């Protein structure tokens, strides 16, 4: 397309924006807002006894650290720019205090003694089970908890235990159920405060404006009836100021509305701002993005306003799968089938373990539901930007497919990932080496990154660091693609990802640029995902191929030929012989209807590369595990741009 130009002709002088290089976010920062250390109950039991916040921050900065389970030296290939250590608020630090520190405030309680006994008997798993049960029961409203049993029943149970083969788990469970006051044994506010302070101090110590940013953060983890309603809460404030409060937990209330109200109150009291980031809607049993509230009542405008205010962004991809969409919900999307997660967080053996697939379980559907609710309520409760995060529990944030340390401590050893090797219900290979948050900011500071989350100028990737720009406006033209600085054009003529455009009849145009991960795979294609509100009040969706690597055309059916594949599965090796290093385009919606509300987001696909399980298989000299694609197409999802008709 471009003719040969002389050197002089290339010296384009078109620097309208040169003087204000800082006028727009020109830095792409990479980070993780969801990471657990040994202070999270599950992380501790599943073999992260030692990797604390200090370890987590050092690892994220690219320093070598010792793995908490294998004790091998681990190092990220490319350091992160920011990290939020976000331990579960529920009983934060309690197993660490009980087992590692032998803290007498816990060790001398009835439940503490029982847990130590189980652990010393080599029954870690049972101790963990009892712990989780304690959390679950504490989350259950008192009127629904089992009542304390009478002395006769208790004696009968004891007698059965003595006369039949001892089942420690069953005994411990019954014992705990027999006396609800036991749950109070692990609640120690003074201790909770000291562990919260420990994470905050580590965040303060590791924050280096301009180089590396830390956040005060935690995970709010209600799982009512096995439905994951978890949120990561991130604050913008100085971590030392977060010592003024204790993280709001599922023990305070399992209803997310109560969390948002608490955020509003705490924000007013302390001056701190917050974002609450829902994650793993894919295992929420149809509840995360439902059109009813926690108690099953239809949503109100007040609910929508409250939610939209605190939840501008959703975590769409992480180790426990990708929640963008599902083939059942998006049957016409040939790339919808990507990294599912097949099991609910459910400790009860007799309960349902299979996740549901409803419009409330996936983010693309939620964006559509948001349009429908907005029409009814006047406010869109699901106006969500998208990010990825790891949810690693080993203290080590790694989303690199070939350098993935797994979800739990023991997952660092490939043999441990075999089905049934450590945990019976799940294998380490069910875990996805994902994801990361890309943030467009002016500089690497807490204020800048937090502001980008608030305005949704952030996006998700499943691990690779592809740079994606997405602007919407009404004036973009193909000539803009040869500008020396695409972003300068994007910001001057339009709005970036996460923002709104309003039209007066003219069709919008979108400036899109996707650049490969400098150390990773080439790109297959860039797509635009559109959702719109039909005249019947129902939202619909369509996926468009917007730009792709050279040498392919759309077929008669409108479908673009596959990019091909260079992966050698036995050696877990691929080459960049196919695909493109950069894809740019100005895209226009061929089906645009000026009167219909809509959202648009970009999905950028890499060429096929080996999945994390394929690297393990190569190391073990075995065939890749059954049930997982040996090769995947990693991807990025941008936050949407919303279109509404002007008046």
């Amino acid at each position: 397309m471009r003719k040969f130009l002389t050197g002089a002709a290339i010296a384009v002088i078109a620097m309208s924006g040169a003087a204000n290089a800082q006028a727009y976010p020109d830095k792409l920062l990479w980070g993780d807002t969801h990471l657990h250390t040994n202070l999270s109950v599950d992380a501790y039991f599943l073999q992260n006894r030692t990797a604390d916040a200090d370890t987590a921050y050092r690892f994220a900065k690219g320093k070598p650290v010792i793995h908490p389970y294998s004790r091998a030296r681990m190092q990220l290939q490319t350091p992160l720019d920011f990290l939020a250590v976000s331990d579960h608020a529920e009983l934060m630090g309690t197993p660490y205090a009980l087992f590692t520190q032998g803290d007498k405030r816990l060790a001398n309680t009835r439940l503490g003694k029982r847990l130590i006994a189980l652990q010393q008997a080599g029954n870690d798993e049972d101790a963990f089970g009892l712990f989780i049960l304690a959390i679950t029961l504490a989350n259950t409203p008192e009127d629904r908890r089992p009542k304390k049993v009478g002395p006769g029943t208790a004696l009968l149970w004891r007698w059965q235990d003595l006369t039949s083969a001892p089942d420690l788990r069953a005994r411990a469970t019954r014992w705990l159920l027999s006396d609800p006051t036991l749950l109070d044994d692990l609640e120690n506010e003074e201790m909770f405060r000291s562990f919260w302070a420990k994470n905050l101090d580590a965040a303060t110590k590791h924050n280096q404006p301009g180089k590396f940013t830390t956040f005060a953060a935690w995970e709010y983890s209600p799982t009512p009836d096995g439905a994951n309603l978890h949120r990561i809460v991130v604050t913008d404030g100085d971590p030392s100021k977060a010592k003024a409060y204790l993280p709001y937990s599922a023990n305070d209330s399992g209803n997310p509305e109560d969390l948002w109200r608490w955020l509003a109150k705490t924000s007013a009291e302390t001056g701190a701002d917050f974002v609450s980031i829902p994650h793993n809607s894919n295992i929420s049993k149809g509840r995360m993005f439902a059109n009813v509230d926690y108690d099953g009542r239809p949503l109100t405008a007040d609910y929508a306003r409250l939610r939209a205010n605190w939840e501008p962004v959703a975590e769409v991809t992480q180790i426990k799968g990708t929640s963008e969409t599902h083939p059942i919900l998006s049957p016409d999307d040939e790339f919808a089938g990507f990294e599912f997660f097949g099991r609910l967080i459910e400790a009860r053996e007799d309960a349902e373990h299979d996740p549901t697939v409803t419009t409330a379980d996936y983010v693309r559907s939620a964006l559509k539901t948001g349009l429908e609710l907005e029409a009814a309520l006047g406010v869109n409760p699901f106006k969500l930007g998208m990010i990825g995060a790891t949810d690693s529990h080993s203290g080590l944030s790694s989303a690199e497919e070939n350098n993935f340390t797994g979800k739990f401590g023991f997952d660092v050893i490939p043999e441990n990932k075999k089905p049934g090797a450590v945990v019976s219900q799940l294998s380490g290979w069910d875990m996805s080496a994902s994801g990361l948050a890309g943030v467009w900011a002016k500089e690497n500071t807490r204020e800048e990154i937090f502001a980008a989350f608030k305005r949704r100028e952030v996006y998700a990737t499943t691990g690779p660091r592809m740079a994606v720009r997405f602007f919407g406006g009404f004036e973009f033209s193909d000539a803009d693609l040869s500008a020396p600085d695409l972003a300068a054009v994007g910001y001057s003529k339009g709005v970036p990802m996460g923002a709104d455009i309003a039209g007066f009849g003219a069709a919008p145009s979108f400036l899109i640029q996707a650049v490969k991960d400098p150390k990773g795979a080439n790109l297959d294609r860039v797509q635009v995902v559109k959702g719109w509100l039909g005249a019947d009040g129902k939202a619909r969706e369509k996926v468009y191929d917007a730009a792709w690597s050279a040498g392919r055309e759309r077929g008669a059916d409108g479908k673009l030929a596959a990019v091909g594949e260079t992966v050698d599965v036995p050696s877990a090796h691929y080459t960049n012989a196919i695909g493109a290093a950069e894809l740019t385009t100005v895209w226009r919606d061929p089906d645009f209807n000026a009167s219909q509300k809509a959202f648009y987001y970009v999905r950028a696909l890499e060429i096929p590369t080996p999945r994390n399980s394929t690297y393990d298989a190569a190391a073990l000299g075995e065939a890749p595990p059954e049930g997982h694609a040996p090769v995947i197409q990693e991807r990025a999802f941008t936050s949407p741009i919303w279109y509404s008709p002007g008046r």
Partner: protein
Amino acid sequence: MRLSALLKDPLTHFLAAGALLFMIASVAAPDGDEAKAIVVDREALLSHVQFRSKAFEPGAAEALLDGMSDDARAKLVKDYVREEALDREAIALGLDAGDYVIRQRRVQKAEFLAEAAAKTPDLTAKEVAAFYAANKDLYRSPAAATATHVFVSAKDRSRAEAKAAAAALLEQLRADGARFEDATRYGERFLFHKNYVDRTDDYIRSQLGDEIAAAVFDPATALQEWRGPFSSDYGEHLILVTARTPSRLAPLAEIEDVVRADAAEERRQAAIDDAIDKIIARYRVIDRLEGGGG
């Protein structure tokens, strides 16, 4: 394996105690052997109080014992006698034999002994300095450079054409006296960055390739001078390097606390390993595996 858990359960205690007492009564009653004497003295009670409360503070235990009412003391004595009798009986019946929990507990206790003996040492300044000298790589920050570049794409033209265009552009940059901040006015858009400020070799190499990274970090590449063309996978580049920061070893004075902690931890770990090695050395290991376990 399950015994210790059972024994920690108070109700189990109660029921098991009933059963065992019955056995003791029937089996051991006639025997008046001196070995079966349970001596209740102050020392035994103090020890018992401390184990029960898991608070090993002899002073507090003495105060507690001295302050006890007669009833409370009688209960304590009864409690102690019961525990002692049951423990001896369990040993006599061989209930501790072949119990893996007890074995693990013993191993753990021995490990604790070794760990406790290996207290975190107070190191002298000289020792800290020696550790620093031996482990400098731990405290080294990587080399970095600041450079900008002007890019001519080889996407829609041949490599030779790109090189020729870049060579012409180099003349122009030099003639114009273009500075770092002027670089954005020249050349074509590069897919990654225009400016690389204080970036490591690894970072620059991943985006601009080996040839350019080598040129940027080569001390022979003069600063503040346009050089090139150099090739990357994407085209031809003219580079202007404005600063190179060599790999820096943080001086000991700057990071002494960190080094001291690292050195002390290493010393402590080594002491634990030594102590355990010494214990192992007191045993003769007879290896009957095929090939001697080479």
